[in-house]
């Protein structure tokens, strides 16, 4: 009980005894003085119940003094003529002490129970709070809020920053800074040691810094600072604080373990993807190589003994497979370059017709006699793009269309301007792709479920996406309602194409006219 509470208790005792004395003054003409003692006894019991032992004893002493002075003959003196009054006084004192002690004990018990209840309730709330937090910083934010509220202090939490220092994760920054507070936080983190009153108090440190540790591992530091002038934490609150920090430390550990498990999972998946990729790539590299080596050794060993047709077949195999190998290595290199993230898009204003034209020229051997219709919007302006890279986009998309549509079916290329973007479409009349594969088609090494029969490693479209995105554009795939696939590329046109002044109209050609 606080000091002011005690003073109130004694004042209350005096008041109650005063009221009793007034009542006695009214009654004493009608009753025996021994009856008045009962009245005083009652007031002592009331004081004991209401204010505890001290005020009760004070009330007993005061009652004895007043009763003796006012009502014990000879009245208005403290002398006692009849000895049995001395017994009365003793009884009043004993009653005061016993009831006061008993009630004080009962009240103490009740207060303790109440406190425990509050603490259990807030622990319960905190643990409930923490259970639903997924990350360390969320856990700390919840804990800092709850602990600050319950204890009536400013609170903050710090996490290690990975460079031997700490970083504020939640709460009031002024609690953990500046020096020497910050040094205390670092020290608590490094040495897993609580700092600040009532633990070790380094000079100048005002707060309390508690490591949130499980075993020897400190996951975070909880820092508290009581308001100016508040008393230090009592054992009750320290115990509560300990319970809070243990709970929070466990929640943090749970987060850390979850994160670790997730990281391990990711690593395992990446490892699996890498080995799948390695086996796929080495298979795809070896296949053409095997054909080349086989054909070359056949040519070497047969000497001049081969039929011209067989010889031509072998030579053709070598040339074709070498070409395929070269494309594959080119794609792998391009993918690596795109993934290295080096910005190497050199945009200039280009004629799309020219870029498409050179892509188709490069593809002539593959396309054979397949028809490719090119439908460009009339007066298509120059487009800002990197011609070397964009040529690859067109080339890969047309190559793809060629690979996945039956012979004789035409490929169509359309281009127009739409909302300030170039919209380029490559359409084929092949089988299209399975529903739901739209996005996955652009993942590297992903091969459409209908692609198994065609050669390839699944890099062409990934490269297209990489290049288009490096241009700030988008690429998407869709099945056409009439059958076949449609790939749509959009590239933003930023700025106006540079002007090229018109020349004077046609110069008549010198010399004879025809």
């Amino acid at each position: 009980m606080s000091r002011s509470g005690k003073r109130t208790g004694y004042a209350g005792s005096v008041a109650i005894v005063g009221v009793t004395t007034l009542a006695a003054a009214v009654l004493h003409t009608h009753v025996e003085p021994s009856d008045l003692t009962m009245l005083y006894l009652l007031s002592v019991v009331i004081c004991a119940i209401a204010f505890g032992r001290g005020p009760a004893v004070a009330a007993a002493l005061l009652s004895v003094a007043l009763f003796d002075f006012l009502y014990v003959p000879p009245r208005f003196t403290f002398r006692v003529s009849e000895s049995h009054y001395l017994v009365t006084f003793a009884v009043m004192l004993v009653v005061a002490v016993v009831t006061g002690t008993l009630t004080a004990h009962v009240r103490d018990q009740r207060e303790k129970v109440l406190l425990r209840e509050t603490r259990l309730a807030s622990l319960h709330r905190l643990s409930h709070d923490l259970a639903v937090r997924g990350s360390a910083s969320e856990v700390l934010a919840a804990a800092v809020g709850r602990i600050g509220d319950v204890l009536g202090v400013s609170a903050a939490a710090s996490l290690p920053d990975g460079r031997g220092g700490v970083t504020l994760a939640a709460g009031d920054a002024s609690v953990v800074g500046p020096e020497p507070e910050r040094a205390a936080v670092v020290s608590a983190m490094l040495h897993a040691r609580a700092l600040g009153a009532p633990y070790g108090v380094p000079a100048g440190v005002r707060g309390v810094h508690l490591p949130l540790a499980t075993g020897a591992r400190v996951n975070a530091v909880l820092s508290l600072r009581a308001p100016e002038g508040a008393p230090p934490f009592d054992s009750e609150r320290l115990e509560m604080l300990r319970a809070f920090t243990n709970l929070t430390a466990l929640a943090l550990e749970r987060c850390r373990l979850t994160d670790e498990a997730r990281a391990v999972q990711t690593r395992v998946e990446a490892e699996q993807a890498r080995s799948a990729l390695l086996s796929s790539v080495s298979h795809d590299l070896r296949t053409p190589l095997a054909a080349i080596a086989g054909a070359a050794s056949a040519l070497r060993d047969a000497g001049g003994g081969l039929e011209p047709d067989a010889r031509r077949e072998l030579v053709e195999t070598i040339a074709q497979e070498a070409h395929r190998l070269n494309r594959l290595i080119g794609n792998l290199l391009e993918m690596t370059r795109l993934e290295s993230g080096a910005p190497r898009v050199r945009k200039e204003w280009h004629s799309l017709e020219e870029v498409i034209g050179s892509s188709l020229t490069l593809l002539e051997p593959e396309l054979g006699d397949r028809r490719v219709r090119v439908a460009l919007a009339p007066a298509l302006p120059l487009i800002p793009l990197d011609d070397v890279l964009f040529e690859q986009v067109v080339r890969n998309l047309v190559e793809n269309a060629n690979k996945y549509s039956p012979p004789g079916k035409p490929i169509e290329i359309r281009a127009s301007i739409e909302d300030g973007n170039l919209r380029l479409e490559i359409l084929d009349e092949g089988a299209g792709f399975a529903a739901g594969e739209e996005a996955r088609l652009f993942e590297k090494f992903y091969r459409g479920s209908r692609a198994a029969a065609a050669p390839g490693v699944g890099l062409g479209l990934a490269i297209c996406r990489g290049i288009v995105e490096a241009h700030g554009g988008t690429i998407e795939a869709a099945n056409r309602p009439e059958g076949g696939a449609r790939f749509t590329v959009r590239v933003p046109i930023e700025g106006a194409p540079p002007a090229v002044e018109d020349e004077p109209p046609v110069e008549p050609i010198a010399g004879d006219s025809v």
Partner: protein
Amino acid sequence: MATPAAADSETRTSGAPAVVLVVDDEHAIRRFLRAGLESQGYRIVEATSGEEGIAQAATCAPDVILLDLGLPDIDGLAVLRRIREWSQTPIVVLTAREQERDKVEALDGGADDYVTKPFSMPELLARMRVGLRHRARVGREAATVIDSGPLRIDLAKRRVTLGGAVVSLTPIEYRLLTTLARHAGRVLTHKFLLGEVWGPAYTSQHHYLRVYMAQLRNKIEPDPGRPRLLMTETGVGYRMAETEDA
């Protein structure tokens, strides 16, 4: 392609086989070049480093030089510049993939043409032939009529006909076409074309070239979207296709 051996090596006025200097550190490349070129009637001199290449270029008087850009000792571009200080021998550069900037630098630095590894023998022979022909023409009076398939350019009369019909060209289109035609078969860089047609102040105005090339193709190519004559060398420049020996 089965060009008779004599046709290629005949360019040497003496009638002796043309000498090709191969500067490449890769044994496999040199071996395949020797086999391929000797069967075409060329005589081969090999150098395995830049310094050796420069020395050989001075001593063995090659008719054409095949220069790899990735040499172990000095940069191929430096070799090119040093040879060009005193020699006009045609140089065809051999480059690895995706090095457009290197190609442009080599061409602007005096190389006649390039082939990208891996290249085919016919491709290389075509580039070498153009270089040799160009060299053979130097000193002779320039032709006044250039024929390229259905296209005929009469330089004296400033008249361009396509399959007999006159094609109206603006002065810039005409200059662009004749520049390409005079170097038919050779790749010309953007910078070179802009300097020749528009003047030295325009060498970075690449979009001029794109606009006028499109106009020219519209007038000359049957299908401007799939050009057969005015070919794009993406990232490098343009080349007029070589349709017959001029």
